[in-house]
């Protein structure tokens, strides 16, 4: 079977991408697999200037999942372009840069810098980070703000496809999906983490200094699958599904409800070569199920 996927401009050799923030800058995983085998590498969210992130502790394990409030610690876009990107196999595997900014202006500055970089395959805009005080989530929860940001990003992105990453912390995901589509988004990815919290009854303190964190991992898969399904029914642009994917069956579930590609997040923590193994195993699983082409399988869920 032909494993390639074309996400409206972003071309992948297979539908398996990494999820931002769970795969570092890609290089961390070089000892564990061949990066060129991945569909795409999505790097840790970058901001214009380096960020320190939130104070420790920032992560805690939960039933079938984890909470994180890293707070977008990153080396800044400049250092990334200088020190990391050249070492990534961007000629064979698209490198997607995940963006974070606190204002529409910062978003457009970031975009301008990146749009002229040959090695950048696409931009993924994080309008959905629950772990920072400024920016992030408010864009993802307020359709009007989201429209403005995406619209402006598109103006500066040049030929780079713009992926908009949605927050699940909304009453109706369809509304925001429709909005960012109409604002010109080329692709939608979802879901980002779900807001959550953990506390320690012994110390009587939150387990994460930031108090709130984002929930990810297998626990959230049912929620992610529903939202991806709803968005796929709502928009015409390609959708990248993620949230709790940990095996090839999960991957196919997201494609069955309409996703064109998927991202692997927390699962990369269960084994650093997870995403590489999934690429191999997916071929076997697809064969086993007799799937003939992505076009035939994608969105073929039968109701009633």
């Amino acid at each position: 079977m032909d494993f390639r996927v074309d996400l409206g401009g972003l071309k992948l050799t297979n539908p398996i991408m990494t999820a931002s923030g769970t795969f570092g800058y890609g290089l961390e995983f070089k000892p564990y697999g061949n990066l060129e085998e991945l569909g795409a590498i999505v790097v840790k969210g970058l901001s214009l200037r380096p960020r320190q992130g939130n104070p420790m502790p920032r992560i805690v394990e939960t039933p079938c999942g984890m909470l994180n409030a890293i707070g977008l610690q990153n080396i800044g876009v400049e250092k990334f372009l200088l020190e990391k990107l050249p070492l990534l196999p961007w000629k064979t595997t698209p490198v997607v840069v995940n963006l974070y900014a606190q204002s529409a202006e910062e978003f457009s500055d970031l975009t301008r810098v990146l749009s002229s970089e040959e090695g950048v395959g696409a931009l993924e805009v994080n309008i959905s980070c629950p772990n920072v005080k400024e920016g992030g989530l408010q864009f993802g929860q307020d359709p009007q703000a989201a429209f403005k940001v995406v619209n402006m990003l598109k103006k500066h992105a040049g030929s780079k496809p713009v992926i908009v990453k949605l927050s699940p912390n909304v009453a109706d995901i369809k509304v925001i999906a429709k909005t960012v589509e109409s604002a010109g988004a080329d692709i939608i990815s979802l879901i980002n983490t779900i807001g959550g919290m953990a506390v320690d009854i012994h110390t009587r303190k939150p387990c994460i200094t930031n108090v709130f964190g984002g929930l990810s991992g297998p626990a959230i898969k049912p929620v992610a699958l529903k939202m991806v399904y709803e968005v796929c029914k709502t928009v015409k642009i390609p959708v990248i599904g993620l949230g709790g994917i940990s095996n090839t069956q999960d991957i196919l579930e997201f494609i069955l409800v309409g996703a064109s590609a998927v991202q692997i997040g927390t699962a990369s923590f269960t084994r650093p070569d997870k995403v590489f193994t999934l690429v191999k195993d997916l071929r076997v699983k697809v064969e086993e199920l007799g799937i003939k082409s992505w076009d035939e399988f994608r969105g073929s869920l039968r109701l009633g």
Partner: protein
Amino acid sequence: MNHKIENKKQRCQSLKVQTITYSGTRDFVHVYLDPPIWDYVPGQFVMFRPGSWSNDPVWPRPFSICEKTDDALRLFIQVVGRGTKLISCLRPGEDVDIWGPLGNGFSLKNDESVLILAGGMGIAPFVGLCKTHKNPGNINLLFGHRAPLSSYPYDELPENMSKEAMQQKSMEDLNEFQLVLKQKIQDFASKGRILACGPSSFLRAIQKYCLEYKADAWLSLENKMACGVGACLGCVARTTDDEYVQTCTCVPVFSADKVFL
């Protein structure tokens, strides 16, 4: 961190459990696994996740490499929570995903004197270190512990190194131990390197004394970790340069004057 060891041999493998033995109680276990293909430096650690864990717990667990021989990789583990409890119940033949060797490890010269300060499970990385040391006579070890000494792999440390163990059962014991710690550090500060591993309260005390006496000391931190490869940024420690660095890759062994505990 100038101390980073380039290690291109990191690998993720499924290794089989050979045996699990209990040390004193069921809360202290030695896990022997089929040997991995890589070599290591004492102070380095592995991420450990049994295949049977499926969805829950999600995270692997980090453990110092206690010892590695041609026959086995050995870890020394205390049962403190759910993950370690499950690990202590593993059976011979079960598969465990292991990646490593991770972190930098201790740097020391065989021909120099070294003071090792180990607190509780902090003894784990020093077992291999002492047993493979070319000149055990250069090693001085002070071991503070709560459980009976027989729970720990203390007796198997080389005969010809100098070692001392102190048990802390009460506040008084603890105060006394702190005094001995301080004295040892003061005495040793000018003689060579100090290596320490143990609970954070233990490390904090050591750090204080080491700064006071300007000792060349290295501390092995035990932050919570999710990925072990530097990707999640969950395990960072704040350095005196006000940077957050991943303890899993850049360290866990820190120079005592470079990190906030």
